[in-house]
């Protein structure tokens, strides 16, 4: 009898913990708080989901919204950028990111580029890494199916099957290279300045010459890091060292 109780209790406990571990639960809880205008509560709930090891594009996007509402522009931009990696074709993410960027102080002029490179970027960013991975795996299996089918279909279907096989092979090769391209680019780390103001120095040392100052919400490209300092580069090409605690990587 006693054992049954213990067993029952343990089932209960496990169900509760599994409920909390379920990311969907945390997302819904955060959404409820968000709608009740409790932005801090929503942030706590959603950050909890991230800490338990689950992430999704909408989750990052919602976090960005909540941070924007409490006026934390740096965190808002950081999470919108993270959301954009997972939801590259989502208009809301891009629109909110643009609105959040209005509140940033720094204006860094990007060098002029040919319009074709913008198209290239648009094509490259059309799919997220996860989607490319899915396309890659699916086209792989499709190709396999075609190879197997080759031996079983009557001769009259073989011409069509060969065309399909060539198409799938082309998609496969394209996706593999596309994935590699994106993965390499994502491997170049970008970061968002979170501190209200941070000094960019000429060397990884607070006593070195201060080159310029950056403010919350500015996006920088990360280079090597050295004992609490990180080498960053702006889109206009300027470089310097910044204290690692003032940044968060996307």
């Amino acid at each position, binding site marked *: 009898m006693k054992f049954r109780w213990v067993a029952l209790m343990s089932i209960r406990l496990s169900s509760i913990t599994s409920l909390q571990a379920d*990311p*969907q639960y945390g*997302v*819904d809880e955060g*959404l409820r708080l*968000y*709608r009740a205008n409790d932005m801090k509560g929503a942030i706590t709930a959603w950050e909890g989901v*991230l800490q338990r*090891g*689950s*992430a*999704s*594009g*909408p*989750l990052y*996007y*919602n976090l960005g*919204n*909540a941070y*924007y509402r409490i006026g934390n522009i740096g965190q808002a931009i950081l999470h919108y950028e*993270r959301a954009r990696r*997972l*939801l590259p074709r989502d208009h*809301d993410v891009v*629109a*909110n990111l643009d*609105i*959040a960027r209005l509140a940033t102080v720094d204006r860094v002029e990007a060098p002029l580029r040919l319009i074709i490179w913008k198209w290239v970027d648009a094509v490259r960013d059309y799919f997220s*890494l*996860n989607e*490319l*991975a899915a396309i*890659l*795996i699916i086209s*792989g*299996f499709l*190709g*396999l199916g075609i*190879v*197997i089918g080759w031996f079983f279909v009557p001769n009259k279907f073989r011409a069509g099957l060969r065309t399909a096989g060539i198409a799938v092979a082309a998609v496969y090769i394209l996706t593999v290279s596309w*994935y590699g391209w994106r*993965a390499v680019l*994502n491997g170049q780390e970008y970061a968002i300045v979170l501190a209200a103001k941070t000094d960019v120095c000429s060397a990884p040392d607070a006593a070195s010459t201060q080159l310029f100052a950056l403010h919350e919400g500015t996006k920088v490209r990360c280079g090597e890091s050295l004992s609490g300092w990180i080498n960053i580069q702006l889109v206009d090409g300027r470089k310097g060292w910044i204290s690692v605690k003032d940044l968060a990587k996307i």
Partner: protein
Amino acid sequence: MSRFVWLILPILAVSAFAQEKLTATVDRTTLRVGESLTLTLTFEGSASGVSEPKVPPLEKLQVAGGPFTSTSFTIVNGRASSTASFSYILRAKEAGQGMIGPAKVVFRNKELASNSINVTILTASASAPGAGKDMKGGAADVFIRVTPDRTTAYVGEQITLTYKLYFARQIASPEIARLPRATGFWVEEISAPQQLTLTDEVINGRPYKAAVLRKLALFPTGPGELDVEPMVINTKVETQSRRRSLDPFDIFNDPFFQLGRQFEAVELESPTVRLNAKPLPQTGVPIDYDGAVGSFEMRTVLDRQTCKTDEAVTFTIEIEGTGNIKTLAEPRVSIPPDIQRFDPESSEDIRRNQAKVAGKKTFKYVLIPRAPGLQEIPEIHYSFFDPERGKYQTITGGPLRLQVEKGSGGGMLPSGIAVASKQGVENIATDIAFAKTQAGSFTIPGRAPHRGIIFWMGAAAPWAALLSIVATARIQRKMSGQQRRRDLLRAAFKETQAAEKALKTGHIEQAAQHAAVALDSMAESAVGQPCAALTPMELEDIWRSQQLDTELLQMIRDVQDECDRARFASGTFSRESAGQLVRKVKTVYAGIERLLGKGLL
């Protein structure tokens, strides 16, 4: 020559009878701070054509009045002389050795300078006659006192300064020479009486007459310590009679008679007032706060409740109360997008006659509804800082409803529906898009797919499957080839047996036939493909390419030839030679079997 003489003569005449001279005199050379003396500059010579002198450089003195000009013309002993005199009233500013520098006049393009005069200025004493600005002592006969109702106020809060003139002696015609200058304030005059009202007041046991000169309302425009510079008035003060009248008949010298009174011009200066403006509190500031300080009420009025489209409606917002009405900002009004709104006209009605500046500011909007329906102007909030309570207040007005009916403007469609006037959909505000309600598929934060095992498994699986299929097929093919060769060999064995059987029954021809089939099968099993269609040369090539024993091939060929002979010329073929043939076939069979057994094929 004579013509020139006439020209020169008058000049000579002038210079002959008049030596131009400028003399400075003072009525006294010793005085106290706050007292004044009269400086007279006398010009002797031809009074006409002399310029007004420049004020001489002064030390420890300042000009309080003048110049008063007079001219006279005298003929003494046949000599005519004219004088012009210019009088100034100078007031002693501070104690010490004062100096009146040389004054200068220009006469016929010639500059004349006067003598300079030294004066002794003593410190003002309580018993000193005349005017003073000593407020604390209260002993001065005439002074101005400034009373602020407070010395510390919030930015935008009213500070009232009262300028009061006190006098214990008769004064005449006080005039404001300079109004107080207040930099950093918004100044409103609350009262500027045309007629001075006198009251009796006792200060330090001394009776005074007092009159309010000015009341000013000051609104600090920024925080910090701010000075209000003094107000200056010019007046005439009755001087103490030099001698008491002892002669009873000397009634004309009695102060009772105006004629006998001596008046002295004085300049009075009010003290400088230092005021402290506190910044407004930073806590609890409403979002829509626009700088209003005071205490206000709001009224919102639409001039009618219903109207037709494209008709103008007046919307009035009145903000009434005490405070700096002039600086009140326009309230933030959000008019529905279906109503066209014009910029408001604002008017102020300020009441200054009270202690506090109060009044009303009116904002009039002309609204033109463009679409029919019930339009609602939402609540209007107006925030101000109430310095008395020390906190921010928000007042609200509205909401107001306006029933808009379809007007006659615009055309009609055949269906009887009015054509609406089109307008662009305007953005009222920009905001971020709402949160996403679908969480989507979850991944591990910040990890690219290729860092996970699932990706590699998924990507490698088709390749692995393909490889395994190819390998299996290859093995299959290899396996099936061996099997076929075995099957052929078995068939060859059976044919051989059938040949032996036919030989025993004496059917030589049949036996040769069986032997030939057996040989074909054996050859096929050796090379792995049917040999009947091959020429001997081709067979030999394949045989060699498979590195088979060529002796065996030769043997097969010999036996085949013998078989052919036995089949097609059976009459010449003996039974023994047929038996030998079958034995040879068996030998070939053994050779092939040995090859297959070794696994060479």
